């Protein structure tokens, strides 16, 4: 396992795109609290509902809320982390290296595990960055910093980790199918931002909202549900749904299986 990880890390650490994209990703994560702070302040000053409550500041970064609020926003940037997977896998194709690695003595399964291990490791690092940001924001703005209060709903952090792993596995499978980085990136944007939302809203319109939960990007994303309704006094899911977790784990298994199948059954042209 260490050997596979070291092979994959050797490939990444010598590639500029890896440092640029992971740097960009961390910068984006760190910029969120700042941007959110500005927006929250504006909303707090203007929103009527806040006025009705007597002009209170939204407890956006307060403990308990901070975990779900921030990880939910962090999710929007997952696609940038996904690009690392897309470029890493598509360049193996374009340089004939998938083939060459196998010729040199890596098994096809080992090739897949080297990618999956790197996805897991990268997700873990980014999750730790997310955890640190959440803690920093929480300790800065939260009026209560009692340990049991701080760690309540910290489960959104491991949930964010699973989300990152699943999303990158999704990118891995799409790249294995399409092979070319440019087309894959365009296809991912198109699918994530347009196609799936359209299918999902059509399904809801047809009364099949439950089915829409099983669409891949929804399934990968739903583990951290939209948290902000609670500030408008509407019913909000503030925990991790067991069904959401089940679907996500199902997808992680399915995507790994599909990637394994593609890699072991297909000619490595």
């Amino acid at each position: 396992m260490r050997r596979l990880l070291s092979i994959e890390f050797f490939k990444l650490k010598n590639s500029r795109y890896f440092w640029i994209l992971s740097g960009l990703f961390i910068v984006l994560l760190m910029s969120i609290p700042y941007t959110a702070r500005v927006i929250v302040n504006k909303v707090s000053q203007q929103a009527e509902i806040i006025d009705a409550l007597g002009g209170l500041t939204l407890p956006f970064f307060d403990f308990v809320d901070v975990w779900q609020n921030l990880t939910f926003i962090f999710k929007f940037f997952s696609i940038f982390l996904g690009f690392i997977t897309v470029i890493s896998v598509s360049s193996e194709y374009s340089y004939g290296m998938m083939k060459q690695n196998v010729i040199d003595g890596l098994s096809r399964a080992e090739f897949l595990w080297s990618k999956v291990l790197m996805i897991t490791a990268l997700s873990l690092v980014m999750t730790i960055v997310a955890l640190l940001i959440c803690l920093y924001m929480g300790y800065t703005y939260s009026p209560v910093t009692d340990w049991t209060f701080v760690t309540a709903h910290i489960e959104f952090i491991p949930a964010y980790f699973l989300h990152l792993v699943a999303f990158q596995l999704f990118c891995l499978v799409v790249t294995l199918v399409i092979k070319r980085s440019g087309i894959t990136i365009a296809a991912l944007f198109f699918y994530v931002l347009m196609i799936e939302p359209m299918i999902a809203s059509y399904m809801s319109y047809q009364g099949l909202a439950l089915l829409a939960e099983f669409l891949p990007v929804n399934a990968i994303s739903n583990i951290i549900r939209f948290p902000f309704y609670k500030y408008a006094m509407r019913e909000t899911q503030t925990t991790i749904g067991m069904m959401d977790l089940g679907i996500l784990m199902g997808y992680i298994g399915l995507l790994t299986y599909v990637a394994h199948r593609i890699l072991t059954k297909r000619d490595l042209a």
Partner: protein
Amino acid sequence: MSSPESVLSIHSLHKNYGKICAVDSLSLEIKKGSVFGLLGPNGSGKSTTLGMVMDVVVPSSGSFTWFGETPNHQQRKRIGAILEKPNFYPKFSATKNLQLACKIKEVGEERIAQVLEQVGLSARAGYSFHTFSLGMKQRLAIASALLAQPEVLILDEPTNGLDPQGIAEIRQLIIDIAQSGKTIILASHLLDEVQKVCTEIAVLRQGKLIYTGKVNEGFGDEVMLEIASDDITALIQVMKVHPTYLSHRLHKGHIEVKCAKGAKSSELSKYLASHNIFPSHMAEHKKNLEQQFMEILSQNA
């Protein structure tokens, strides 16, 4: 079952691409220490066959064994292979590319300097792969294949696209490696190349094995003679009754006679002189592989 001396043993291997049959029930046996030439025109299934034995192409049916065992990725570390073109990360230096290969093959990095020296690339070790000429890329590929001191070396069209100097360098490298006792499998459509390097050959045509044997034995043992004389008609008449005569072809000013095994030009000139024919030119040439190859291909067309 294959003997312990067998390096690669292929049993009725088959590969279909849709309706096209790229490799058709191919069986081969490659022995330890041989320099085996896989010969055939472009598209005859050589690269597909090598791809299958290296687990890059998935066979439609059939099987093969490496070193008498069922194939697995551990064996591939004992095989150095270059299929079709040298594959490396273009932005990595030669050394970085070889470091990666070392990690995969589980070989110590001290081998890098040795193999770069062997292929004459030491001075370019720190340069990016994409700055290399085709000849240098090919040599780096050979260096990478040699990293794990493999028992078997597979080379697919190793001189393809190289200039004459590059071709000469690569061939010399192959001959040197062959002399060190390694088993070499060389795929090529260049007969001349196979003739210069190989001890055994297999000829493929449209995915089928149509000939296999030793290079020196040739595909037949006929002797080809080129004879010229003032009176060609008389020459032909006399030659026709010679016991070793098989056939002849008339050329401008001379004939090309195919004689059975054992025919000697010295003996023939005596024979012709005894019939009052004095050839103005007589040359014996062993049929070269190219002619034999063309013949085999046309026989099996």
